């Protein structure tokens, strides 16, 4: 593999040299999801119901709150990496691609922030 043409490199269209790292993080977050998401699904099923009191009570436990925060960070990180690849594959116009990738970052980081803050608020007793 070469380093692209000189013109391509000047325009910043060559390899960003971050592909292997992206690929690896996708696998690491996938491996973490392998434990976190099934735990989440089966925890929800084992609750008597999903009424406000029971959900808040469940999230108030420190171990549950920490696992849920890790899950939120990991899930939104994994989906950010995955959707980035999908966008790069299907959106070919450079400016549209840039715009959609920025929206993706807003969605992923915003979603994670909402989830993590909500868990923390409940765990610290704000919604009891």
């Amino acid at each position, binding site marked *: 593999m070469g380093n692209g043409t000189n013109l391509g490199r000047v325009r910043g269209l060559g390899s960003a040299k971050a592909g292997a790292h992206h690929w690896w993080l996708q696998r690491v977050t996938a491996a973490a999801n392998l434990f976190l998401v099934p735990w989440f699904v089966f925890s929800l099923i084992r609750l008597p119901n999903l009424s406000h009191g029971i959900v808040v009570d469940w999230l108030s436990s420190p171990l549950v709150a920490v696992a849920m925060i890790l899950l939120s960070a990991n899930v939104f990180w994994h989906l950010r990496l995955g959707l980035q690849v999908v966008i790069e594959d299907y959106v070919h116009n450079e400016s549209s691609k840039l715009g959609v990738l920025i929206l993706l970052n807003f969605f992923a980081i915003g*979603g994670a922030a909402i989830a993590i803050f909500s868990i923390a608020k409940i765990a610290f007793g704000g919604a009891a």
Partner: protein
Amino acid sequence: MRNTDRPMAPHLQIWRWGPHMLVSILHRMTGVGLAVVGGIIFAWWLLAAASGEESYSWFAGLLTVESGRINIVGVVLGVGLTWAFFTHLFNGIRHFVLDTGAGYELKTNKRGAILVVAGAIVATAALWGWLQCDWIMGIFGGGA
């Protein structure tokens, strides 16, 4: 820019569909579905719970009927996300195996792909069958 005077190489349409192609596009579709629909519902659910009883019951009202049982929107989203989750999970595990360089032999690869698709359907049916156990028992005249 593609020169439209030049012929385009035939690609997708010349291949006979096989399980490996199905599972590949399903991985993408379920991933996008889980990311967008699942991500929004997950964050919204937690936000509603943290915002107090009233916001939570409004959110729950979107997915349930008066008695607290799940409504049609809840069933479609619930079953859909469960199936997408199992498909993406099982194929993710398959990808970990492929990452080690194993499982590329035609027969093995085909078997793995079929197992992913079938396993996800069975797991979804089993999970929702379990969740609806009392309702299913009701059909057979018993009460759970």
